[in-house]
């Protein structure tokens, strides 16, 4: 057995000759291509001349730990590492990317097999990464596929609002300059005006008309979710009709400015119809409207006028057409076709402005952004950073990055569907805790955004927000607030927790309740949530045909088993254990929190056991131990956070060629003490965010 494993390394299989031949031929072709385009890239050529080295070096390690399963005879999962050679085509990189991912996440080699030393692991990862780094498009790094995608429901809603409000920069909510967001008021409570009470959206009706978006990949910005059902145009038309009804009827005073005003001016003859339509289409399309387009819309207006309709009726036609046009509802059309033949090019300024505003605001660029783009200044690094900081301070972030990214990253929607048992936890319903727990989480996330705090505080913070009913529920002493009279609006206080049992999202009622069953906790759900949201390594789905619901089995002494004891049983099955060894301990560490997030020392008349360890790692005990573990794995958390924000911003799953960008952002964030705004700025400045492929690589 051992002999056979060792062979491929010491004694290359005969196919290598062919491979070499192919490689030579390919290099020759590459050189020809490069010459043809007169874009000879010397550093690239240098890199290629060393290409055999990294792989040759790691063959020994792979042979030692991997090839017994992933070898020639019965390659598990179809992966034969013995024959996996130098990547030549784009597709060849994918198995190597898988190798990297499996080794990095610790999924491979399996726990019951010999494990590589830390040095061997780093060595292999380094080598694989250097192989992966060789994937280029005509010598340029690959910024990933560039797909036009439709807006999701949130984006369409915000876009309609900002299109009719025109200037839109003013916060529709009253803002007291002496009392900034989250400032402490004289009675000790804080000003929560940014998020509470939840602001009503002018274009709420969109939610009633458009179908709900799916959220595969975690975010509603991921383009693969955003297919266009054949009924969608009909629904867009209905949205545009409802919007114009509201504007013409001045349903809100906010409408008085903006589109309404422009229509008035046009009706009075202060500007011509073509001028008005050009300006509106330019705004809606996020790029200058072309002459043909304007002519097309003017024709619609004229058509209705010729048939004898009044101005108001006639002007609605082109406005509706503009609001449902692919130029408006599809993101990605701002970039005009270019004659250049390169495979990769930077986004145009206008396209960058659009990408930026949908990333931060989930809405259309405002005038300032648009103007800077038109002036060609947006690509200047300082300008870009300034704009990101400005946009982060704008209220539109609330409907953008806060709701879009932070809430989806924390899986708030899923957590919202918790259903504690009514009979066992009546107070949960009497005190409206579901809603208050959501507010606790959203306030916390919003402060990290507003105060630009260290993202590590999501995991471990000694402060948080509480209101009276929640403080009672969590059993917090020395809570500054008093019991509010019934029906009074709940006031929120910023508190410093006495110990580390509370603080950070892991200890918040929303997360703890949302990952529990009606009557008991679910360490699997809690562990899964930590893996997905905090560590960014979602476990694979359970294999088909497994029973994944815990039975309330009786233990041997006729006593009910505690949840961890049940877990221990289910982990006795090797098919389950391979994944659950990574899931369960994370959830068990939170066992001191009951199904509605209260602290408990006992469960089913037995002391709570909240100890666990991850494969090859230290043992940790309870939530404090878990926090210590996560803080000690700061790099994993930060990297995962970066990856998720980049996914959200790019609107696609990350691929192996995004690794250099992730690394670069990660390093900048670590250097800037984990500031949230640093992640945002660096994502906006990253290579894949600012570049696009001009064509799909041939497979």
């Amino acid at each position, binding site marked *: 057995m051992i002999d056979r494993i060792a062979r491929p390394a010491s004694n290359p299989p005969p196919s290598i000759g062919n491979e070499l031949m192919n490689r030579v031929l390919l290099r020759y072709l590459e050189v020809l291509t490069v010459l043809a385009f007169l874009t000879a890239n010397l550093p690239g050529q240098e890199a290629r001349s060393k290409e055999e080295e990294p792989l040759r070096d790691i063959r020994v390690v792979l042979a030692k730990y991997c090839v017994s399963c992933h070898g020639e005879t019965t390659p598990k999962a179809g992966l034969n590492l013995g024959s996996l050679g130098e990547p030549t085509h784009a597709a060849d990189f994918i198995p190597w990317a898988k190798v990297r991912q499996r080794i990095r996440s610790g999924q491979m080699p399996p726990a019951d097999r010999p494990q590589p030393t830390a040095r061997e692991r780093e060595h292999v990862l380094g080598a694989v990464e250097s192989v992966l780094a060789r994937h280029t498009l005509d010598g340029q790094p690959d910024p990933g596929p*560039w797909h036009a995608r439709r807006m999701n429901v949130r984006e369409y809603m915000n876009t309609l609002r900002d299109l009719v409000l025109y200037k839109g920069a003013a916060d529709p909510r009253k803002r007291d300059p002496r009392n900034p967001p989250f400032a402490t008021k004289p009675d000790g409570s804080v000003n929560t005006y940014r998020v509470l009470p939840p602001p009503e959206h002018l274009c709420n009706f969109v939610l009633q008309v458009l179908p*709900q978006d799916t959220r595969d990949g975690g975010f509603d910005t991921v383009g*693969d979710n955003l297919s266009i*059902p054949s009924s*969608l145009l*009909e629904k867009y038309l209905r949205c545009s009709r409802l919007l114009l009804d509201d504007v013409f009827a001045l349903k809100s005073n906010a409408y008085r400015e903006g589109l309404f005003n422009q229509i008035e001016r046009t009706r009075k003859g202060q500007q011509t119809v073509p001028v008005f339509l050009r300006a509106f289409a330019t705004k809606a399309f996020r790029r200058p409207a072309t002459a043909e387009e304007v002519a097309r819309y003017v024709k619609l207006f004229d058509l209705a006028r010729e048939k004898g309709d009044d101005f108001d009726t006639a002007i609605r036609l082109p406005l509706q057409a503009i609001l449902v046009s692919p130029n408006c509802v599809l993101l990605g059309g701002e970039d005009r076709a270019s004659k250049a033949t390169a495979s990769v090019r930077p986004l145009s300024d206008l396209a960058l402005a659009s990408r930026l505003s949908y990333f931060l605001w989930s809405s259309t660029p405002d005038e300032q952004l648009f103007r800077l783009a038109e002036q060609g200044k947006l690509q200047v690094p300082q300008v870009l950073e300034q704009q990101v900081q400005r946009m982060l301070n704008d209220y539109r972030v609330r409907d953008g990055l806060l709701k879009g990214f932070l809430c989806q990253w924390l899986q708030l929607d899923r957590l919202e569907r918790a259903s504690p048992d009514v009979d066992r936890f009546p107070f949960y319903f009497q005190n409206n805790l579901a809603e208050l727990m959501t507010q606790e989480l959203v306030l916390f996330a919003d402060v990290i955004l507003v105060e630009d705090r260290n993202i590590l505080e999501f995991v471990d913070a000694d402060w948080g927000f509480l209101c009276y009913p929640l403080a009672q529920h969590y059993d917090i002493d020395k809570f500054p607030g008093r019991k509010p009279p019934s029906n009074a609006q709940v006031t929120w206080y910023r508190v410093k927790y006495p110990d580390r049992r509370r603080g950070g999202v892991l200890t918040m009622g929303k997360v703890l309740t949302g990952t529990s069953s009606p009557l008991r906790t679910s360490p699997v759900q809690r562990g899964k949530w930590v893996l997905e949201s905090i560590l960014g390594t979602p476990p*694979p789905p359970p294999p088909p045909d497994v*029973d994944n619901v815990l039975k309330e089995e009786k233990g041997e002494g006729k006593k009910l088993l505690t949840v961890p004891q049940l877990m221990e049983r289910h982990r006795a099955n090797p098919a389950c254990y391979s994944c659950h060894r990574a899931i369960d301990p994370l959830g068990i560490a939170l066992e001191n929190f009951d199904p509605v997030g209260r602290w408990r020392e006992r469960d089913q008349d037995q002391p709570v056991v909240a100890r666990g360890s991850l494969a090859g790692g230290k043992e940790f005990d309870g939530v404090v131990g878990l926090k210590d573990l996560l803080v000690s794995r700061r790099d994993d958390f930060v990297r995962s956070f970066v990856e998720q924000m980049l996914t959200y911003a790019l609107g696609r799953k990350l691929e192996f060629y995004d690794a250099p960008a992730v690394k670069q952002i990660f390093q900048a964030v670590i250097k800037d003490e984990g500031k949230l705004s640093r992640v945002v700025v660096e994502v906006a400045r990253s290579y894949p965010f600012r570049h696009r492929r001009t064509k799909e690589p041939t497979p």
Partner: protein
Amino acid sequence: MSKRMPISRRTMLRGVSAALALPWLEAMSPRSARAGSSATKPPLRVAFVYHPLGADATAWKGVQGSGKEMRLTPTLRALEPVKEELIVVDGLDGRRHPASGHNRSACLWLSSAPPGKADAWGVETDVTLDQLLAAKLSAGAPLKSLEMSCTTHGELMHAMFLSWRGPGVPTGAETRPRDVFARMFGDAKRDAYQKSILDAVAEDARAFKANLGQADQRRLDEYLESVRSLERQIAAFEQGTRKRPAPKTAPPEGPPPSLPQHVKLMADLLVLALQTDFTRVLTCALGDESESAKGTTYHRTLNDFGIDKKSFTGKVEGKYLDWGHHQCSHDPKPTQPLIQAVDRWYVDQLAYILQQLRSVREGDGTLLDHCIVVYGCTNGTPLDPKGGIGWPGHALKDVACLLAGKGGGLLKRTGRQVQYRQGTPLCNLWLTLAQMVGIERKSFGTSTGPLSDLG
């Protein structure tokens, strides 16, 4: 402009409660299809109705006899009045997927994806049977196909959608009765100017597409398809023969107050869509497969179904009575009476649809005579070797399935049960149906060949 809308926005938004029935059925058939005028043969219509989260396979077994003598099982009891219209199909296996589980199963029911062809999410999806049939059957109908789903939440596409246009591209589904209604009678089609607006945006789309160059054009094609779909509906409305009167009742409004009312409305709309020949191919999921909590199909309880808890006194331990359907199905021994009650509830909905279809006179028979209604699921509770209820939970063996209606003569011998050899793929049934309507295909997904003894 709003003055001209036959159904004003106000009506659309302020319609009375969703609990209303749809009483205008009789008046709304297209003239050609109404009883008495048999000048042209009514078109074939096919509807797929989906039973979520699997059915207890044992309760479907043991249908005996045929025709009037046919003896149904207790779960199928509600179908007694229409039993002579049925073919209960037994022994077929659902399509497997390497990483199955509920989240990835609804998309597999009507699937045609050959194995190994995964979409961006690693799930094998491809154009589904309904979409193939629609391409063949729908010429002349205003809508190519209609997709409905009786759910409120649906965040995972493979758990939610039955109908797929291609790998990774679901056809979408209407979840709100009001939306289905709006598509049939909505104001967009009746507005004289909509056509001109569509012309303008279609030109926009063509220019956009030219500008995209070699980059991905998939979404643009979908956009254009959406333009064409609406154009087609407008054209159908403009043709005198298809002009149907607007219903006198206000359309159903808002989220329906309860599950039974939601499903009832969707069922009524389904019948209406087929009756008016609005569409000829239709999928209707009575629920989805999303693994999430509260408010979803997964957690429908007896209360949600409107099933009386008292009827289980002495049969099922009290604690199970508040469990969701999914949780019960994973503990099938103590909860079998509950699962069967839920299965019965879903079959009741089918029975209602079939009876409604049969109550509509059409040509020289009934609407049901010109339909094929397919009812089934992807997951099941398989049998253990002794014939009892199986363990563990859901497998794709022996999934519940039945056909109803004569399909305009394609299914001549209804009122019976057909038994197929263990392990026959469900895809074989889909292949057979495709061949029946004249689609030339030798295989479908993982099929091994057409079924015998069906027509």
